[in-house]
Every structure is written in C-alpha cells, then in structure tokens.
C-alpha cells in the first residue's frame, strides 16, 4: 500500500464535509445590508419589477448612508416560486430580510411561523392609514395581526366585445343587474351571432385557482348580503359546507356549459385556455363576454408579442352583478401580493424601513401603473394622474369598494382544488349540481380536518 493511499478517503471526507457545509454558509449579509427576495418574471423581456426595485434601492441607499440593499431575484413560475421561498424561509441561514408573498398562500406561511407580525412597525407608520381597509385585511392572520404590506391588488369584472354586442343588438354600455341578465345576453349572442363563443367562465382543475377565483367566487360572493363570507365562517373558524349559494353558483357554471353558452367543454378544460382567451379569442373578436381579471391589458401592451392598442375602443367593461341584484349590486374578488418580513430575518428593522421607502405615495403610484395593478392607497386612487394612466384603471379601481379577499387560510389551496373538481364535474356533465356539492363537502372535510360547519 502506498503511503498516499490513506489520503484518498481523508480527502474525500474533507471534500464532502466542505461541500455540505458550504450549502449553509450563512446568508452573509451584515447588519447593514437588507436582503430583498422577489419573484422575477420568467419572461426575460419583462423587467418591470427589477427596474422598479433598482430605483427604490437607489433612493434607500441615498437616504440611509452606510446601508446596503441586496436584491435576490427568484426566477420561477408562481407555484415553483412559492415552493422555493418556503424552503428559504425554513432556515435563518437562508431567510432573506424581506420577501414578496402572494395573498393566496400568506396565511399558510403565517401558520408555519415563517413570517413576523408587523403591528409594532405599522403603529408608528402614518402612511398605513392611507391604505384601504379591505387591502389591510389581505395580510391579516387568524390571530388578528398583520403580516404584510400590500403593494397593489387586482379586481375582476366582465369584459365584452362591442362589435359582437352590436351584431346581437345589445347595448354598448351594457351593465347587467343580475346573473340572469348575464345569461340572457349570452343566449342572445348565441342566437344572433353564430360562430362566436358567447361567454367564457374559467372552470375545472386545468386552470387551477383561476377557475375558483375568477369564476366560482365571483359568483358565490354575490349570492348573499355582500358582507359575510360564504366560504368561511370567521366566528367559528370553520369552512362552510355547500349551502344554497354554493349550489346556485355551481348551477350557473352548469347552465353555461350545458346550454353551450361557453367554449366547447374540451377547450374550457384545456390547460392553455387562459392564453387563448387573452391572446386569441378576445383580440380576434371570437368571444362575446369574458369574466376575467383587471390585468388583461398587460398582455396587449407594446412588446408583448400580441399588441392590441385598440382594445380600449373594442372592449367594454361591466361590473359582475350580484345574483338577484341585491345590495351592493356588484361583486369583485381581489388578490395581490404583499411585502413581508420573515420570522428568521436578520435585519427586520432595516427591512421595514425599505418597505416604507417602497410604499411612499410617489413610489407606490409608480409601481401600480408599471405593473397594471390596482391602487390600495386611497390617496393614489384619487390622484387624476393615476386614474388616467391607462384605460380601465378607473373602472377596476372603483370595484375595490365592493371587493372581497379570499379566506386564504392554510387549508385554502386544498379547498380551492375541491371547488375546481366540483366545477369540472358539472362542466363535463359527469355530475349533477347536487352530486358535485356533496362530493365537495366530503373533500372539504378531508382538506380541513373536519373544520366544517353546515349552513
């Protein structure tokens, strides 16, 4: 045996040891550096967030001499971004000082203990009073504390093709008062304008959360008094099992697909249908009415690949009505993202100082416009410069008055999947509304550990 032979295993051990520990070499940011992680667009030509954050970073470093901002982009589609972020939040070695959180999952992360309550900071920050109440609630945990500062929101409504409406003899300033009005318009289009899709409502698992939020909840939250949550009972902290409103909302989806007022079922359940609505059906005048989100024009801006500068002349906008026209008369759902501070962050104070810089009136306004977002600061919402920055902004900002946030508690993603399955059942005709509802109730009990209440 050569004397060097013994070195090999030793070397290997040393090598392995160093490789393994290098993975957790600490975040390496000193007390003067704030690490900000954010979701970078998977589309290389979209640099909206990068540009904005670089600008804020410059302002911040100027105002806080000796402090540094380190931007940590995570380039991934939404679902993978959540996964990556959650893994970073698990350890103090990898946790950034500031993270960008989707309201869809924020309550899950709060329950996991990943985030820090911001109440002490917010109490000393006068600008917080400028935020709209519904938006403040977006990042509230079940414990009543606030865990994030929203950087804008989105709303949803009805987009309709003025050309198709004219051919069907429907008014150009259409504003339905009830669900029935929406269906009547769709039936009229089906009858008078053959060859177009009268109404698109997303449905089923292939489109995921879009089916739950853009369609089902837009219906469900218009079935009651507009004040109480029809999906989750905050008082007893339980999920609501079915009920009349739930069945009516499913019934609406069933009507659309069984009467063939929507796209062909196979198209509706195609995972790429969202791309087709925005890129093909609406711009090419093949779709009468679309129940969809405020962000659509993003896709029609210059440089998007399917520019459509005329959209604001060719499309009309209408608020989604409540079921029977009961007060408040219109309904919208809102999501959006918030800036939050991880529980394991090294420099929480500095991180909040950075939030304050990002959320000055001027910076917030710059961001809403750049991102096709809806203002959550009331002073920006009133600013004429913001209101006229893009067509449609005023319409969708006004919807914030009557908007609802999802009860995005930890079980929500599973509840959402159960809703999508029920929708898919009535869409394909595999299930009646009753069957789909009872299947949903079973799935709900499973998803929420029986935290279910009958209504």
């Amino acid at each position, binding site marked *: *045996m050569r004397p060097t*032979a*013994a070195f*090999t*295993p030793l*070397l*290997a*051990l040393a*090598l*392995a040891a160093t490789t*393994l520990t290098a993975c957790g070499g600490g975040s390496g940011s000193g007390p003067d550096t704030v690490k900000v992680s954010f979701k970078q667009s998977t589309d290389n030509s979209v640099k909206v967030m990068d540009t904005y954050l670089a600008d804020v970073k410059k302002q911040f470093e100027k105002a806080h001499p000796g402090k540094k901002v380190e931007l940590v982009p995570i380039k991934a589609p939404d*679902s*993978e971004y*959540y*996964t990556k972020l*959650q*893994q970073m939040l698990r350890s103090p070695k990898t946790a950034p000082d500031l993270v960008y959180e989707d309201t869809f*999952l924020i*309550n*899950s*992360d709060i*329950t*996991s*203990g*990943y985030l820090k309550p911001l109440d002490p900071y917010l109490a000393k920050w006068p600008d917080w009073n400028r935020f709209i109440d519904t938006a403040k609630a977006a990042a509230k945990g079940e414990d009543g504390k606030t865990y994030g500062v929203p950087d804008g929101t989105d709303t949803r409504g009805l987009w309709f093709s003025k050309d198709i409406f004219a051919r069907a003899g429907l008014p150009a300033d259409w504003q339905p008062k009830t669900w029935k009005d929406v269906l009547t318009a769709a039936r009229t289009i089906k009858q008078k304008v053959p060859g177009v899709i009268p109404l698109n409502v997303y449905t*089923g*698992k*292939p489109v*995921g959360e879009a089916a739950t939020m853009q369609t089902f909840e837009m219906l469900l939250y218009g079935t009651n008094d507009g004040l109480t949550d029809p999906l989750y009972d905050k008082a007893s902290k339980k999920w609501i099992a079915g009920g009349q409103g739930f069945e009516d909302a499913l019934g609406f989806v069933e009507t659309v697909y069984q009467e063939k007022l929507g796209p*062909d*079922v*196979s*198209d509706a*359940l*195609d*995972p790429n249908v969202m791309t087709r609505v925005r890129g093909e059906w609406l711009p090419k005048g093949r779709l009468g009415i679309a129940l969809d989100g405020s962000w659509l024009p993003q896709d029609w801006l210059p440089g998007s690949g399917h520019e459509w500068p005329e959209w604001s002349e060719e499309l009309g906008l209408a608020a989604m009505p409540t079921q029977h026209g009961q007060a408040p008369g219109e309904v919208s759902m809102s999501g959006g993202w918030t800036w939050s501070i991880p529980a394991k962050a090294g420099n929480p104070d500095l991180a909040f100082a950075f939030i304050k810089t990002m959320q000055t009136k001027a910076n917030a306004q710059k961001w809403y416009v750049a991102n096709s977002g809806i203002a959550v600061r009331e002073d920006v919402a009133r600013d004429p410069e913001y209101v006229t920055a893009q067509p449609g902004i005023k319409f969708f900002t006004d919807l914030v008055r009557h908007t609802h946030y999802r009860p995005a508690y*930890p*079980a929500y*993603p*599973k509840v959402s*999947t159960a809703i999508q*399955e029920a929708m*898919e*059942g009535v869409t*394909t005709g*595999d299930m009646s509304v009753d069957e789909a509802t009872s299947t949903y109730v079973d799935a709900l009990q499973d998803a929420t550990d029986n935290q279910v209440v009958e209504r």
Partner: protein
Amino acid sequence: MTTTAPHTDLGKTSGPTAPRRPPRRPGSLVRALPLTPAVVLLLLFLAGPIAYCVYIAFTDLQLTGQAQDSFVGFENFTRAFGDEAFLNAVWLTLVFTVLSSLVGQNTLGLALAALMRRASKPVRTLTGGIVVTAWVLPEVVAGFLLYAFFRREGTLNAVLDQLHLPAQNWLFTLPILAVSFANVWRGTAFSMLVYSAALNEIPKEITEAAEVDGAGGWRRLWHITLPMIRRSIGTNLMLNTLQTLSVFGLIWVMTRGGPGGRSQTLPLFMYEQAFQNSLIGYGTAVALLLLLVGSLFSLVYLRLLRTEV
C-alpha cells in the same frame, strides 16, 4: 462528481460467453480503499436523501400551513389506499405503462429494428434518424408537438377531416391513449437501438440453417430470434418500464393530468399532492409506493430472465 451506474443483475446483454472473474483473495480490503471516496459520496448524496425521504413519508410534514410536523406512522399509506384519486392514478399508471412501454415501445422498437436490417442503407439512415430525433427532443418540446398534433384544431383531426372520418378532441375524449401514444412516439428509439444491437449479435449461420430447413418468417422469429435476444428483451423492458413509470413532463404539458383526472398518473398525482396541496409527507409516501410498483415490474422481469434456454 461522477456517479456509478446502478448495477443490475440482469446478466450480460451481449455475447454468449465472457471470461469468468477470478475469486477474490483476502487482503482485498486494501484494494477497496480507492473505492472509498466514491462510496462516501454515494452515501452522502444518494443514500442520505433517500433515507430522509423514507423518513418524511412517515410524517405529516407540509411545506406550508402547519406549525409543527409530527411522526404519523403508516397514516399516509392507509390514506392513499382509501383515496380514490390515488387508486385512479395507480390504474392509469398501469394502463400507461403497459400500453406505451410494454406494448408500444417494445414491439414497435423490435419491429423497426427487424425491418431496418433488411432495408437499404439510405432508408435505414433516414428511418433511424427520424426515430432518434423524436427521442433526443426535450420532453417539453415533444409534449408541445404532440399537444399540437392531438388538439381539436390539430394535425390529426385535419388528416381525419381529409379522409372524411369523424374528428374529435383526443386530449379530451381519450387522454390516456393520447399521452400513451406520445410516449411511444418519443421513446421507441431507445428500444430500436437496443434491439438493433441484439439482432446483430445473432449468428447468420443459425438463421440460414433454419431457412434451409424451411422455417418461415414467423417460425424463425418465434424459435430463433426471440430466444436468442431474450436477455436484451428483459433489459429493455426493465429500463423502459422504469422510464415510463416516471414520465411527468410529457403528460403535464399535454393534459396536466386532466380532464377530470383521466390522465393523472402517479407522478402527476404526487406533484399535485406535494407541491400544489403542500402535503410533502403524503406526496413522498406516494413516491415510495411508486417505487414499489417499479420494483414489482422489475421482479417479474428478473423472474422471466432467470430460466436458461
């Protein structure tokens, strides 16, 4: 870092004879020393994570939405067998594997290999080129190509229209068949290459002798060709099956497991549970069950291979 290929006891896939190894002498411990680094690395980077996975499968670990995870024993497994969606996924995985791997890739690969032996060189090059191209395409690209082929306004329906046959949305009506076909389209090249090599190993004299004795094509195939390439069949089936069991991207791109879970095989089910519902523990348990399915297939093949001709 290099990994060593997993050593399977499939016997040799080439040549009927090979030199026998000399028996190991004592004192070979010293000679095993150079292997230590590789073994240590394997333990660290392969066995470690696998052991951790096995542990996770017995916990209720979630990626998010829980304050504390705990050990739950076999709960994830009992839950799986009571879960209709899981049983549906198992069934679809079997359908997908049998259709696309056992029947599709295997038979088609053998047929192509056999036909190409008799073809002229340009035909052989062209066919081989096309088949191998399908194989080397990235999975996502292949997925999109076949999505475009099967969708309602797709190529297949355009062809059927020309022939005045009824068109339909294949991804909606027969999703599992569509993705199985896609997998055959993409994976046949591998079988073709394995079988081409195996057929070249058959001594010409034997086939000629059989021909002289008056054996027809089918009889030659059944009594000579197949027994002689039995080992390759086994190896190919095993590799094919294991590859097919873990196909994810192709199905994800084409159907996302839909509509209504009608093409949701186990890998897609796993992904949904672990990353869309954040149930890491449950997803990992399902992964272990998938491993079990794979090893069952492997065992069957190994049994088939054991009997000597």
